[in-house]
């Protein structure tokens, strides 16, 4: 649906040239929710803005639905943009228009006739859950409601792609979840391709299928969300993941466990998506003469399943055999002591 090839954007500043994004290659399949995460200044905002050419790349090509946006005429670009919805961190609604009129705006742009506008707008208001608020002005709405208007407006022309530029960054956690649920629902219902940028790993975890991590204008790692969560390679990725997992695997905690549970072995089990649902621990206890004491653990859920890690204390005469059994079952495990 979308592919970026060697896209580069250079800004001229008084202190010389700054590479906002540097030779980016990216492919997004139809129906996917693709997240781009990075700290501020990583270039993610520039990246998403090249996808509808709000930012014209210095070099490289931007293909949306097979069309290279950098090569088409202004008029073709305008028509293409009507097929690419976009929502913003600060919503960017017209204060002079009501909810209804704001949504109608994007339909007016694509010359839809009045009758059709009415039915489409009402349908969208229903979809985003703003029934009864159609005659309110943006100043009378909460942040979450404003973003719902933004989403309705972006979806009005049945776009092929929805771009979300930090769409939840100005919202509180509760409202963020509601908006993410709405985006996931839309993705599911219409098989709409969504690309979002964020600095919150939680957003990626909750709704994205794939993720790209950006640092200093480059994509340093990308892949399926679950795999990235299980095996983050780049230090920036690891930092983002710690942020969402509350970092309780810290060195101190493990040292603490070792002193608090002096007997037997202490193991860390890492569950992957296939193993998470099977009762390996009870199976091990049944088969061997061991006892297992669960001392610390957590499971994280993403769009495509969960993964978890569990700290256990293993004692008993069959400890060695039990260890072997667990390893053979496909659980990744680390003997801490």
């Amino acid at each position, binding site marked *: 649906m979308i592919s970026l090839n060697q896209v580069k954007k250079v800004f001229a500043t008084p202190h010389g040239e700054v590479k906002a994004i540097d030779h980016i290659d990216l492919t997004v399949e139809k129906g996917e929710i693709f997240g781009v995460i990075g700290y501020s200044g990583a270039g993610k905002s520039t990246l998403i803005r090249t996808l509808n050419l709000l930012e014209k790349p210095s070099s490289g090509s931007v293909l949306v639905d097979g069309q290279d946006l950098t090569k088409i005429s202004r008029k073709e670009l305008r028509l293409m943009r*009507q097929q690419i919805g976009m929502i913003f961190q600060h919503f*960017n609604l*017209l204060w002079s228009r009501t909810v209804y009129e704001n949504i109608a705006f994007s339909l007016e*742009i694509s010359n839809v006739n009045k009758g059709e506008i009415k039915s489409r707008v009402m349908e969208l208001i229903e979809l985003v859950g703003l029934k009864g608020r159609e005659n309110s002005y943006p100043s009378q709405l909460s942040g979450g409601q404003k973003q719902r208007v933004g989403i309705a407006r972006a979806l009005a022309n049945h776009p092929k792609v929805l771009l979300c530029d930090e769409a939840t960054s100005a919202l509180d956690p509760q409202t963020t979840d509601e908006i993410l649920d709405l985006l996931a629902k839309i993705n599911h219902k219409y098989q709409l391709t969504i690309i979002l940028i964020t600095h919150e790993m939680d957003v990626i975890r909750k709704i994205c299928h794939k993720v790209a991590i950006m640092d200093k204008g480059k994509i340093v790692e990308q892949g399926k969300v679950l795999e990235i969560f299980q095996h983050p390679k780049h230090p920036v990725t690891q930092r983002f993941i710690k942020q969402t997992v509350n970092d309780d695997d810290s060195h101190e905690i493990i040292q603490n466990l070792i002193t608090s549970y002096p007997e037997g072995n202490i193991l860390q089990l890492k569950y992957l998506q296939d193993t998470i649902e099977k009762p390996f621990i009870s199976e091990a206890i049944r088969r061997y003469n061991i006892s297992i004491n669960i001392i610390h653990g957590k499971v994280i859920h993403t769009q495509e399943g969960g993964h978890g890690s569990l700290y256990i204390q293993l004692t008993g005469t069959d400890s060695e055999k039990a260890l072997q059994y667990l390893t053979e079952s496909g659980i990744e495990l680390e003997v801490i002591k």
Partner: protein
Amino acid sequence: MMLDNVNWQNMLNATTETLYMTFFATVFVFIFGLIIGLVLFLTSPYQILENKWINGILSAFVNIFRSIPFIILVVLLIPLTRALVGTMLGPTAALPALIIGAAPFYARLVEIALREIDKGVLEAATAMGATLRTIIFKVLIPESLPALISGITVTTISLVSFTAMAGVIGAGGLGNLAYLEGFQRSRMDVVWVATLIILMIVFIIQQIGDFITKRIDKR
């Protein structure tokens, strides 16, 4: 002695002339000022029609006409007025000078009003694939309307005082009446009544402007 010298019929005629000049000048100033202001805004750096040359030339033109004292502008524009209106006398003859004197001022106010529009909103419209025409008529003008209205209110009020100045050199209206029939003949009551009427006109314009601005501002 109080108000003995006031000829109410003349006063009424002069008031009508002042209102006539103010009204038509305002209409044209609004149109020209809006157009010039839009071009100034759209051709400025980082805007849709960024163009250093057009922006620079128009900006210089606006600054020059804004700096010329109005009374001198009237004199400088005598040939143009003669060519357009055919005479230098009467309220219609004041219109070219009034419009050329006030339009650049209003154009600057328009430009400032447009700059105040949230950049994100313009970006959203561009991202939706809006044409320049849509951006002008459905985003720029509606989103800056309260500032455009309060700007034209201020401009109209300065136009009222411009009409009084133009009146001194023959354009008619309350300024002309106050100067010729009042000041020149030492009839201060005429001056005072004319001034009072001008004050009332200004006051009413301000009230109307404030009322409309308040009504349309949904922020």
